[in-house]
């Protein structure tokens, strides 16, 4: 533990006398300072006041001198002479001279014309410039600068020789003042300045010098090319700028040489100079000097090449565009290429190719196209875009549109080319379904962005459903009842009906039908010739769920086939059109559009599918009564969505049984339709109960099962029906059939799973009922 002695910790002795002395000195100095400032300020104020008073006194005198005219009256001349004598006495005083100089210096800034010239003359006449000369001899730089400025402003040309020696003064302010004075006072001053200037010439100084030269009335510029060889690079630079300003294009060779200069600023200026003069000879030099230049110079060079380059420079520009490290240079090179050869480089980044839906949407935006299709009585338009036009919803038409008074048909051609070129067949097939979906289930209220979102959602949902359908064991038909039920407005509906009538009127269905029948007959004949052994088998595969087949069994084979083909068309029409049109013999507007939408490949597939039907001798005849009934059901039920569908997808059998009871309580027509699908359920109890509930619900809702339906349900499924389509063919059909024909698959019930269920159902019911195969008109 250290010990401290109190004696060492004692405070130092304070010498109060010294402190008082220092305080007094500080106060004295402060007082002295304030007194000094006060005195100086008063002196300056008095001087300023004195000068102001003197100015007021001398200003009229100066005015008298400035506005004196020799033609003045004698009295005025006498006054003038008196004033002259007076002012001579006044200028003997330095102060008066100073005030006079100030007056004249200030006035020269505010007056112009003859008065200013008189003022210059008065300044020199009074000998005030001698005072300015004296200032030039001063050692103080601000005085020298003031003297130079005064002599320059008062246009004392005699001072030129005295001032120009300050051009290379060590002080920048004096130097710059002298440079401007030299150039201002005499025309040859610029030449002397450029010859002798050793120091740097700032950009601002160059601008001021250029401004002085520009304001000369009678300035004859020298040939500035002679200073391109100056040792001072700023002189070279200024000379280049002067050459450019005065358009002295007689120095092109020297300027081209300067492209090789080491200084980038000079190179840039030289390139810009050559660009302005359009010197094509400089191209090779520019290209040679390009590599060792910095980015700024390169950009200037590319700019020049874009201005006066030729096609043989494109290779160089392409190389720069590919190889240069600097993005700006590459970008400039691309710009130069596009300038020399427009559209040589097309934009590639972030370019989104329009999908077929986009193009279809763009075509929809031309309502006159719809009219053009309706006007021309072409029942089967061959081009795809015509089909799309045909399918356009009527509500896309602007209200103020007058059909037939729109753009000529030629304007359609580029869009046709665009469509045909941009879309590959794969894209067509891929987007085929989405186009139909958009057209059939259009939502008129959607805006453009919403339309795109809607497309995406529909596609995603569609893909999900396809995936689900592949995974599920139960019927593989596509449940499209997730789509919103679109209720068309009565006006729109009326318009559609009217358009359909027009199209029906304009169409030639009979001829087309006959042609189609002929084609099919030829196909059937070929098939019969090639495969006679299959014929009896085909005969056995007549589906018994279509009642009219039974009625027409007596007819001969050919008429069966013809009729079936005809009825198949009717069915197609019913399914696609939503059965809005009564005449089944004529293809309806929408179904026509769907048929038209197919490309050749799809048509080929359709033919193979039709061939398949023919091979299996599927008779699709429908009686007129049933046809109307089917139409009604279609109108009522399509699309049908039951909330129970989602529940039944994931629930276990016990839950399903409970839900079936609930369906009976709360069920409606859509639930009645949904119950039909439960005939494919894995659990036997569910199938049985579903059948029972369905019948009870039908009673509750008052749904009358017509004779044909009852007949179908009561008739046992024959083995031939089970063999309607072989496994391989079913899968083949799944692959081949266009999506829009999935409706048919559901209607024909050509799924093996369903067939597998039928014996069990028959056994359970004992009535030989086929269960609940989706009937025609009972869409899902």
């Amino acid at each position, binding site marked *: 533990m250290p010990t401290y002695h109190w004696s060492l910790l004692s405070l130092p002795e304070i010498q109060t006398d010294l402190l008082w002395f220092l305080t007094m000195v500080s106060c004295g100095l402060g007082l002295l300072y304030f007194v000094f400032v006060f005195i100086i300020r008063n002196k300056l104020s008095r001087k300023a006041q004195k000068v102001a008073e003197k*100015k*007021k006194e001398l*200003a*009229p005198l*100066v*005015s*008298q001198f*400035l*506005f004196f005219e020799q033609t003045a009256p004698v009295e005025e001349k006498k006054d003038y002479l008196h004033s002259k004598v007076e002012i001579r006495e006044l200028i003997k005083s330095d102060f008066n001279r100073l005030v006079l100089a100030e*007056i004249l210096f*200030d*006035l020269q*800034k*505010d*007056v*112009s*014309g*003859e*008065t*200013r010239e008189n003022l210059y003359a008065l300044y020199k006449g009074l000998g005030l410039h001698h005072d300015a000369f004296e200032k030039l001899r001063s050692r103080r730089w601000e005085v020298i600068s003031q003297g130079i400025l005064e002599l320059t402003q008062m246009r004392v040309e005699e001072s030129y020789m005295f001032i120009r020696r300050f051009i290379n003064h060590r002080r920048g302010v004096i130097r710059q003042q002298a440079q401007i004075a030299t150039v201002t006072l005499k025309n040859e001053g610029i030449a002397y300045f450029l010859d002798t200037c050793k120091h740097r010439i700032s950009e601002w100084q160059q601008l001021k010098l250029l401004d002085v030269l520009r304001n000369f009335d009678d300035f004859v510029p020298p040939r500035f090319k002679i200073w391109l060889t100056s040792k001072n690079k700023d002189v070279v630079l200024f000379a280049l700028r002067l050459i450019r300003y005065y358009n002295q294009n007689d120095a092109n060779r020297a300027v081209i040489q300067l492209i090789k200069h080491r200084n980038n600023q000079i190179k840039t200026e030289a390139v810009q100079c050559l660009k302005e003069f359009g010197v094509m000879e400089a191209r090779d030099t520019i290209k040679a000097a390009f590599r060792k230049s910095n980015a700024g110079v390169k950009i200037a060079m590319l700019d020049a090449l874009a201005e006066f380059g030729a096609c043989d420079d494109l290779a160089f520009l392409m190389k720069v565009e590919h190889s240069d490290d600097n993005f700006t240079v590459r970008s400039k090179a691309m710009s130069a290429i596009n300038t020399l050869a427009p559209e040589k480089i097309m934009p590639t980044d972030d370019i989104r190719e329009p999908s077929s839906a986009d193009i279809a949407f763009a075509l929809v935006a031309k309502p006159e196209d719809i009219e053009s299709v309706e006007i021309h009585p072409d029942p089967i338009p061959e081009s795809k875009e015509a089909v799309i036009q045909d399918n356009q919803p009527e509500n896309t038409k602007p209200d103020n549109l007058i059909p037939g008074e729109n753009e000529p048909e030629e304007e359609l051609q580029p869009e046709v080319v665009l469509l045909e070129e941009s879309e590959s067949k794969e894209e067509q097939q891929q987007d085929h379904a989405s186009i139909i979906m958009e057209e059939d289930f259009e939502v008129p209220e959607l805006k453009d962005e919403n339309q795109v979102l809607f497309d995406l959602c529909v596609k995603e949902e569609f893909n999900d459903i396809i995936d689900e359908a592949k995974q599920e064991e139960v019927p593989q038909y596509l449940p499209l009842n997730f789509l919103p039920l679109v209720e068309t407005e009565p006006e729109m509906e009326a318009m559609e009906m009217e358009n359909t009538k027009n199209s029906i009127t304009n169409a030639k269905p009979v001829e087309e039908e006959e042609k189609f029948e002929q084609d099919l007959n030829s196909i059937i004949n070929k098939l019969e010739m090639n495969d006679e052994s299959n014929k009896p088998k085909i005969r056995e595969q007549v589906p018994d769920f279509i009642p009219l087949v039974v009625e027409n069994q007596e007819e001969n084979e050919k008429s069966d086939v013809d009729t079936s083909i005809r009825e198949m068309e009717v069915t197609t029409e019913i399914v696609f059109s939503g059965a809005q049109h009564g005449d089944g013999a004529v293809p309806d507007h929408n179904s026509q559009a769907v048929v038209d939408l197919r490309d050749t490949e799809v048509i080929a597939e359709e033919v193979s599918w039709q061939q398949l039907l023919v091979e299996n001798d599927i008779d699709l005849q429908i009686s007129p009564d049933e046809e109307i009934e089917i139409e009604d059901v279609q109108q009522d039920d399509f699309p049908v969505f039951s909330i129970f569908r989602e529940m039944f997808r994931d629930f276990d059998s016990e839950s399903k049984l409970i839900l079936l009871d609930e369906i009976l309580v709360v069920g409606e027509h859509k639930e009645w339709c949904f119950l039909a699908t439960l005939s494919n359920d894995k659990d036997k109890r569910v199938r049985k109960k579903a059948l029972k509930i369905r019948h009870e619900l039908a009673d509750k809702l008052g749904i009358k099962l017509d004779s044909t339906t009852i007949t179908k349900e009561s008739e046992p499924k024959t083995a031939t029906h089970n063999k309607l389509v072989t496994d391989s063919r079913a899968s083949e059909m799944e692959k081949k059939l266009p999506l829009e024909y999935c409706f048919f698959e559901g209607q024909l019930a050509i799924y093996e799973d369903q067939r597998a269920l039928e014996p069990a159902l028959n056994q359970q019911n004992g009535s030989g009922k086929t269960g609940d195969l989706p009937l025609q008109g009972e869409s899902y």
Partner: protein
Amino acid sequence: MSDKQILLAEDDELLASLLTYRLKKAGYEVISVFDGQEVKNQLAQKIPDIIVSDIMMPYFSGIELIEYVRNELRSGVPIIIISSAGNEENVLSAFELGANDFIAKPVSPSELLVRVNRELLKV
């Protein structure tokens, strides 16, 4: 011509003196004032035959002077504006408010005299 009175409003005394001398020499009666307040006082006493005013003045700018004369005094006395070069915006404002003519600095006294004569002949 001698009975015409000119109100010259210019804050630069030297220039005002020079112009006053020139206008007086031309036979006009010139009242020279150096700021906007003096202009108002002068106008309260008597409306001159013509007003020559700088745009930039202390207390009361040339623009305000025009507005005052046209809107408050309801006078159609000719007004010539003196403005620095490049002060285009103020000049346009002055013309919109009712200035009759404009002359740029540096001023040529002879030119000003011609313009004054012309404006007075219009009255």
